[in-house]
């Protein structure tokens, strides 16, 4: 079967464009496999393992674009290469319609928009600091989606931002809202009176979506990046964000969302919260306050959403394991018929904070050896390729592998919707679940698939349709990630029923 390759020297395209090229090529008649990637060392390994490496590709350097196609015939391969040309020269519809030439640098963009107040940066991590510094030095807020930025560079960027009293949201900031407008992966939620400081993109998405379902909107959500509350960064941006939200007249209550802060940073955080006259709910997953009194500390993202809404409305609130106990019992009866004895749980996540939260829920319920959680959005999986919330393939491949794994009895999944996220993430996920089920059935096994969906009725993917697609494939969809993790625990540990569902 012929393999045709083309190397374009010094020709950069971002990982999204390359993903589109590869997808379009694979959909062509006669094309069996295709790759479109920059010539990084990791990508050379991929080409070799896919049998797509040639004499021509082996000299490609990281600045070179490599296209590789394996097809049934030379004619199909040639057609593929012509298609590549068409996609690479495509212009953005809005710019083409306006007859605009795209600026090539931040400086020339600012000449087009001299009153810009924020720069959103999602270039590869190696280049992110340079672009972010250029923006911060002009006194502009930065939304820094890029990951693979060193801790030293992060500290330098945040100090530069603090000096000019602007926000450096990130690195590795997935989501933020300014004036109710979402940046990055953002669910469509109403504008409202809850302000957020978030060291976690998917954590923020989960809480704003749940809060929206409860009828409240967002004022501002300042993303700070996952390492802001580390000992090294010391919460530089969290402090600044709390100060801004405390002074913001549209914000009536504040939610802080993070993985556990470094122990040394907790007292500092509590002092900052203690100075705020507005109610503050703190969801630092896995952390407890050092000195009680400042803020209401909650255990899960669900609890954060319910607690802040109850606070705003002056109502009482207490955490609960499930919102629909009869519904859970019915699902459980169904699921227990599928899960083998001695089964373990495999969590395949696109949201890092959701994976972390699942671990916190599962560990005390089933013990550390009964589950394994993989965060496919972690730096190691995203170098040179799109985030799994944009490109579902990396997770789909692992779902398929799970079908071959005898020990996996429960597959625990998240599905995150919103702007800039894959237009229909349930469909490729479900296709992988079907493949995994077939593989398991061929070996005389079965597994239970459990998911939760982060999304709102306003999201472009259609929340109800996404849930229906999952349920149509027999995936048990729970109302939140924490509930999904508890349900997974119930499936493999029937003895937990009394504790989690109450007496029956």
């Amino acid at each position, binding site marked *: 079967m012929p393999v045709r390759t083309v190397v374009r020297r010094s020709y950069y395209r971002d990982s999204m464009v390359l993903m589109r090229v590869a997808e379009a090529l694979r959909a062509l008649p006669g094309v069996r496999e295709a790759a479109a990637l920059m010539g990084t060392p990791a990508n050379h390994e991929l080409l070799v393992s896919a049998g797509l490496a040639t004499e021509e590709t082996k000299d490609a350097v990281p600045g070179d674009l490599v296209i590789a196609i394996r097809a049934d015939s030379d004619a199909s391969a040639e057609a593929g290469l012509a298609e590549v040309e068409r996609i690479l020269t495509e212009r*953005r519809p809005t710019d083409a319609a306006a007859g605009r030439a795209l600026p090539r640098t931040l400086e020339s*963009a600012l000449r087009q928009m001299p009153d810009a107040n924020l720069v959103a940066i*999602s270039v590869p991590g190696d280049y992110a*600091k*340079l672009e972010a510094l250029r923006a911060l030095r002009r006194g502009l807020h930065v939304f820094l989606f890029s990951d693979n930025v060193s801790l030293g560079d992060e500290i330098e960027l945040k100090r530069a931002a603090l000096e000019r009293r602007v926000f450096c949201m990130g690195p590795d900031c997935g989501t933020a809202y300014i004036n109710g407008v979402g940046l990055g992966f953002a669910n469509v939620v109403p504008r409202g009176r809850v302000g957020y400081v978030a060291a976690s993109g998917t954590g923020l998405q989960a809480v704003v979506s749940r809060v929206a379902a409860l009828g409240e909107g967002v004022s501002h959500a300042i993303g700070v990046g996952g390492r802001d509350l580390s000992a090294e960064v010391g919460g530089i941006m969290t402090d600044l964000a709390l100060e801004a939200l405390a002074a913001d007249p549209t914000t009536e209550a504040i939610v802080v969302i993070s993985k556990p802060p470094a122990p040394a940073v907790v007292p500092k955080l509590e002092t900052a919260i203690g100075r705020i006259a507005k109610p503050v709910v703190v969801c630092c997953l896995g952390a407890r306050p050092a000195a009680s009194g400042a803020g209401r500390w909650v255990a899960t993202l669900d609890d954060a959403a319910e607690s802040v809404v109850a606070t705003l409305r002056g109502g009482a609130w207490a955490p609960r394991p499930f919102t629909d106990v009869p519904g859970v019992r019915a699902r459980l009866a169904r699921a227990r018929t599928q899960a083998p004895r001695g089964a373990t749980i495999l969590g395949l996540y696109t949201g890092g904070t959701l994976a972390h939260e699942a671990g916190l829920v599962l560990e005390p319920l089933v013990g550390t050896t009964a589950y394994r959680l993989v965060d496919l959005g972690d730096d190691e999986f995203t170098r040179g390729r799109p985030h799994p919330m944009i490109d579902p393939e990396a997770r789909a491949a692992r779902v398929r592998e799970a079908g071959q794994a005898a020990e996996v009895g429960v597959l625990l999944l998240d599905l995150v919707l919103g702007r800039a996220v894959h237009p229909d993430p349930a469909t490729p996920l479900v296709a992988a679940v079907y493949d995994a089920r077939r593989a398991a059935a061929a070996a005389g096994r079965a597994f239970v698939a459990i998911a939760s969906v982060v999304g709102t009725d306003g999201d472009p993917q259609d929340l109800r349709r996404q849930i229906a697609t999952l349920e149509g494939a027999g995936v048990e969809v729970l109302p939140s990630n924490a509930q999904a993790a508890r349900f997974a625990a119930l499936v493999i540990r029937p003895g937990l029923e009394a504790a989690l569902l109450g007496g029956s």
Partner: protein
Amino acid sequence: MSLALDQPLRVVNVGLELFASALEAAGVCVVHVDWRPPAGGPEVAALLARLDD
């Protein structure tokens, strides 16, 4: 610009075009930069970050 958050967002997007499109869909004014890595790679970028003041 101060920390005041009450100004309408006006965004320059450097990197994934997808984010510019999402902002446009949300009704935000955005200029997208057709970004390319600087010639010379990451090492040159690091050097520029130090000098570019």
